[in-house]
């Protein structure tokens, strides 16, 4: 396979969309920022879930870990963390502009590296597990992370931490975080496009298709799995650092490790868009986030019931996702050659869309 990168036209389109959005719709800057965050979530989940066939239920762990790492670095550079987070603190602590930006920059880098390091450590526990055990094990890691921080006084326990305040006008703050998240999503997409075209991409696809055979062919499957998980953790850690500063307040159960919201959104967006395809997670993230933003407020408390139903419906009836469905319907548009006679058979056999009938 050739070392493909994103088409220049696509890059231009992405940059144009990213820069134009806050200028055209200044009232929705925050929503657009969250949309880019969702694209990061879905694309990084798909590295493991779609391309490598390891369905994780605990990727949110790295998001929260990055958020807390960056908080500790940002505060710890200039003050004592235990003092800052203690509930009894009465003094008001102000960060100067220089302190804020150096702290944030170092914090974000530390968050990415820290999350990747945690991925390497946790991979010792989870990567011997296969299939559903892997999903449950990673869910356990995420819940354990939340519970650990919720009982850790030094990190503010369940009461959370108020992050340093952005030195500047609210409008500037919105644009600052918007462009950070857009930049992150852009880097993730360009990087993943390149990654999937290398031998590494082929190797993780081989692990998805048949891990035993891949191992027998001489692939160091464990090493590939670890690296893939660390890549996804690295980007999620940085996303956590940015999002923590964007909300201004972090707390373990609902913001840093939200196992029943962001964590499930990731999987749902990928399934909706199409697992194991490059554009699927992006399409899924956009469709899901827009539908959610538009309809969420009309459900009056029934949002999460609707979310659960949506999971069941997508999983049971529409598992190939939007892009997967399009690929099946118009294979020639995606550069998939179809033999004229047994077209249906061929599309099935490339393994893009698991067919219910194919299971027996």
């Amino acid at each position, binding site marked *: 396979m050739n070392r493909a990168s994103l088409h220049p036209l696509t890059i231009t389109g992405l940059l144009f969309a990213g820069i134009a959005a806050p200028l055209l719709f200044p009232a929705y800057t925050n929503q657009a920022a969250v949309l880019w965050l969702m694209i990061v979530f879905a694309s990084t989940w798909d590295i493991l879930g779609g391309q490598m066939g390891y369905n994780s239920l605990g990727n949110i762990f790295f998001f929260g870990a990055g958020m807390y790492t960056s908080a500790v670095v940002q505060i710890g550079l200039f003050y004592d963390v235990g003092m800052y987070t203690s509930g009894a603190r009465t003094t008001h602590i102000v960060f100067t502009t220089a302190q804020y930006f150096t702290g944030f920059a170092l914090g974000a880098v530390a968050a990415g590296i820290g999350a990747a390091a945690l991925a390497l450590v946790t991979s010792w526990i989870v990567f011997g*597990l296969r299939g*559903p055990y892997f*999903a449950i*094990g990673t869910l*356990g890691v995420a819940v354990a992370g939340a519970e650990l921080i919720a*009982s850790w006084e030094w990190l503010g326990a369940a009461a959370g931490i108020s992050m340093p305040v952005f030195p500047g006008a609210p409008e500037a703050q919105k644009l600052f975080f918007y462009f950070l998240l857009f930049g992150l999503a852009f880097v993730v997409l360009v990087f993943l496009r390149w990654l999937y075209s290398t031998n590494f991409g082929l190797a993780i696809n081989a692990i998805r298709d048949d891990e035993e055979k891949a191992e027998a062919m001489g692939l160091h499957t464990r090493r590939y799995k670890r690296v893939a998980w660390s890549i996804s953790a690295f980007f999620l850690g940085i996303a956590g650092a940015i999002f923590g500063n964007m909300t201004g307040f972090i707390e373990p159960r609902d913001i840093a490790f939200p196992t029943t919201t962001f964590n499930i959104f990731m999987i749902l967006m990928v399934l909706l868009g199409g697992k194991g395809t490059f554009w699927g997670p992006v399409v899924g993230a956009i469709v899901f986030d827009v539908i959610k933003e538009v309809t969420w407020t009309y459900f009056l408390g029934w949002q*999460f019931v609707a979310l*659960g139903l949506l999971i*069941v419906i997508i*999983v049971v009836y529409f598992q190939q996702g939007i892009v997967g469905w399009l690929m099946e319907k118009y294979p020639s548009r995606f550069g998939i050659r179809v033999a004229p006679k047994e077209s249906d058979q061929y599309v099935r056999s490339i393994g893009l869309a698991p067919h219910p009938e194919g299971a027996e």
Partner: protein
Amino acid sequence: MEQVLANISVLAAMPIFNLGLLIDGLLVGSIFALAAYGLALVWGVMNVKNLAQGDFIMIGGYLTWSLGRHGINPLLGIPVAIVVLWGIGWILYRTVISKVITRDLFTSLLATFGIAIVIQQGLNLAFGPDTQSAHADLPTLSFAGGLITIAATRVVGFVFAILLAVAVILFMKKSRMGQAIRATAQDARAARVLGIDTEKVYSFTFCLNAAICGAAGALVAMVWNVQPFLGTTYSIRLFVIVTAAGFGNLPGVIAAGFGMGVFEQFGGFVLGAEFQQALIVLLLLAVLAVRQLQQLRVRQAVQ
């Protein structure tokens, strides 16, 4: 930390306290064992890992609690919960489970996770997020000069859990349907060839599991408490039990259920009740890590 050490020294100084915790743990563990058996049944027969197991328990618990609130003895909640959960299980089987049963494992896991979210949020909307408990108006027994106190409800719960478990096990061993279920678990294809309607067996197994969960839930509401979001904790707990024992190993599942009850009583006493959930999750990770080490050994032996 000092609190933990102090609690441990209390246990060391007063052996009778250990006995009390042990008895309490065994009484509670019987309910875990019952529900874990249901999980192992569905897992073994249908190869579906039901993440909504704990939420079925919560439905049963809330049924019993609402009966108790209308002045009906919560003990009557057990048959009601069994019947209602059987129905719910049947509906879920027809609409969701029967469609994911032949797919890959993550599909059924995610589908049951979706069901779990719907049940949790539905209960939350219907009953509110408060912790509730059904009172059966039974006395608290005390022994050894008041050092060991045992709530009679826990004893009743224990007896009912054992009775139900024995009934289910006898059913599986003796009845025609039980034999069909076991045959399907061994080899679904061969069972179909020999004329067993496996579709019916799957549907029956799932309903039976839901009913077992309903009964366990009724007992939980009596001896403990129910809350819409506690279901996840129960699911993880049951998953730990079945993973630790292995799903084909019935005596193992029951022993692990009792062990879980005792472990939680001691852990809760030493560390404090607020660490309960963290404790269960850590136990899950520990069990998975140990299982993995065992498999590693097998793999090396094969190589």
